[in-house]
Each structure stands twice: as C-alpha cells, then as structure tokens.
C-alpha cells in the first residue's frame, strides 16, 4: 500500500520538462532499436534477418525456441542449404532444407524442393495447391548461424499475449517513475 502511495506521489510531482525528457529518451531507445533492425536487414539482404524456430520439423538440429541468423545473397540456391521461405497464402515462414534443385540453362531460374529433416515426406504438402516447386522469389534467406533457446522469449510472448502486456506495462511504469 505504501508503494502505491509513493508511486502516486512521484507521478504527481513530475514536471513538464522531466516528462518531455523521459518521453524523448524512450523515443530514442525505440528508434535506435529500429535503426539496428533495419541495418541488419540491409547487411544480411533478407527481410527478416533473425527468425525463431517454431516447430520440431528440423530436429534434432534446430529445436523449437532456437533462433536462426539469415543471410540472402545472389548466389544460386544449392541442395543442402537451409532456407527460409514463405508459401503464398501462409504468413508464417518455414525453415527447411533444400533437397532437390533444377536450374534452367538459359534463365538461371531455379525449381527447388524442400523437406524438414525430421519430417517423413517432402514439403509438397505444405506448398500451395498444385504447386510442385519453390522459386527463388519464395525464399527469404539462408540460415547461416544459430543460437539455442533464445527464441523462447518470442514464443512465450506470442502464445500468451498477456505476458507481453504485463511486460510493456511494467516497463512503462518503470520509465515513468524512475528519476533519470
């Protein structure tokens, strides 16, 4: 109870200049996070330079909750690469391995078939209806490195959004009530 009284007092005693300073610091933190994210997008050439592994289809290599670092270059897609791709109509990207490649002589365009290491069959069941191959424009990046367990934070926040709201609320309260 005393803590709540203290919080109310500190909120009442804020001056305009202090509030503005804190709002600007908060804005700076958010903006620099955005700058770092966009810079990563430029450096790695991929729309989402970091993804979280959501399913167990690449076990035991990648488990649910691992994060993958992606890189996209103009190099041709070759068998064995672990690629992240979007299927038309599905919003969640899929991270699987390329098992078949057919590259055209003239245009250099490529037909690619993928499969999760832990799945029995290839990914044709996941592709759009009637689609047998992936093309280059479906592929968002190649996985080049990974960190275990770090992605669990994202998974928890997505699957139990209440935790996201609690975290943001607590952060906001901390920013408002702290003196610097």
């Amino acid at each position: 109870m005393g803590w709540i009284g203290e919080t109310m007092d500190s909120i009442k005693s804020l001056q305009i200049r202090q509030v503005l300073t804190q709002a600007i610091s908060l804005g700076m933190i958010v903006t620099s996070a955005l700058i770092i994210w966009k810079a990563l997008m430029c450096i790695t050439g991929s729309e989402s330079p970091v993804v979280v592994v959501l399913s167990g289809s690449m076990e035991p290599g990648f488990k649910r909750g691992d994060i993958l670092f992606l890189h996209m270059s103009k190099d041709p897609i070759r068998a064995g690469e672990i690629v992240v791709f979007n299927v038309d109509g599905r919003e969640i990207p899929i991270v699987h391995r390329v098992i078949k490649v057919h590259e055209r002589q003239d245009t250099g365009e490529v037909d690619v078939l993928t499969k999760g290491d832990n799945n029995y069959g290839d990914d044709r069941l996941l592709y759009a209806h009637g689609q047998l191959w992936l093309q280059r424009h479906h592929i968002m990046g190649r996985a080049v490195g990974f960190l275990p367990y770090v992605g669990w934070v994202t998974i928890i926040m997505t699957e139990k959004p209440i935790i996201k709201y609690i975290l943001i609320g607590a952060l906001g309260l901390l920013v408002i009530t702290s003196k610097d």
Partner: protein
Amino acid sequence: MHSFGYRANALLTFAVTILALMCAMASFSDNFNHPSPSSSVQVLNVNWFQKQPNGNDEVSLTLNISADLQSLFTWNTKQVFVFLAAEYETPKNSLNQISLWDGIIASKEHAKFWTHTSNKYRFIDQGSNLRGKEFNLTLHWHVMPKTGKMFADKLVMSGYRLPKEYR
C-alpha cells in the same frame, strides 16, 4: 544508485553480454578445425529405370555409401547432417541436384559408417534425359554447431553412368 533494481539490471546485462561473448568464441574456435573427410559410393544395382506417365524419367538405385567424417567433429558440434546428391546436366537445365539419401550423425563415434540402401528420395528428372546419362554423386555435409556459425562442404565423386535403355 545502489538499489536492488539497479544492481539486478547491471548483473543481468553483464551476464547476457558474457554469454553472448562465450557463444561467439565457441563458434570462432570452429575455424581452427581443418577437417579431412573421405568417402566412396558404389552403385550396386539399377533396380528399375522407367519413364513415368507424365513424361519424366525415374530410376531406382541400390547404393553402398561409406564415409569417414570423424575429422569434422569439434567440441562445438551438435550434429552433422550428411546427404548424397546425384548431380547432372541436361539440355534444359544447367544443373540438377537430386538428394538420394540423407542421414544425421549425432556423435563422432557414428561418423565412420557405411550403409547399403536404395535411394530414400525418388530420382526423377524434369523430362526424359536420363538414358545413358553421366552423373556425379556428391556427398554433402552440414556441420550444425551447438552455437554459432554452420559449415557446409562437399566431396564430388564422378564417373557414374545410367543405363542406355529402360529396364
């Protein structure tokens, strides 16, 4: 300046930074490993070789794959994913790579192996170009670390040829 909150925050930041640094160093140590893998593949039998109703050639092979990939393992290696791909060229396609078999090697002890198997994935061409076709069998491996950068490489074995007629 000395409240619990500040101390916990400083400690947490320091811990995360040290952890990230250790992961980076672990990954960097993988660069000092100079692997020398070896492998050989024999095509024991062409089980059948047909043209499918949709016009694509398909062949089924029995293979004997043996390899020694023990030098790829470091202390930072979680597993090695190995697969054998048939690679060939056709008039329409400058490169075709078809994975015939793959496996996961979980530890250094299992990295020296041989297997006698028919192709796990169907060897289907885009078109009807496989009769008498010369192809390479390339063993690819993908070293997946406990943390950090993944390494991939391959060993090309050439000189394989498919039969001139369907059977």
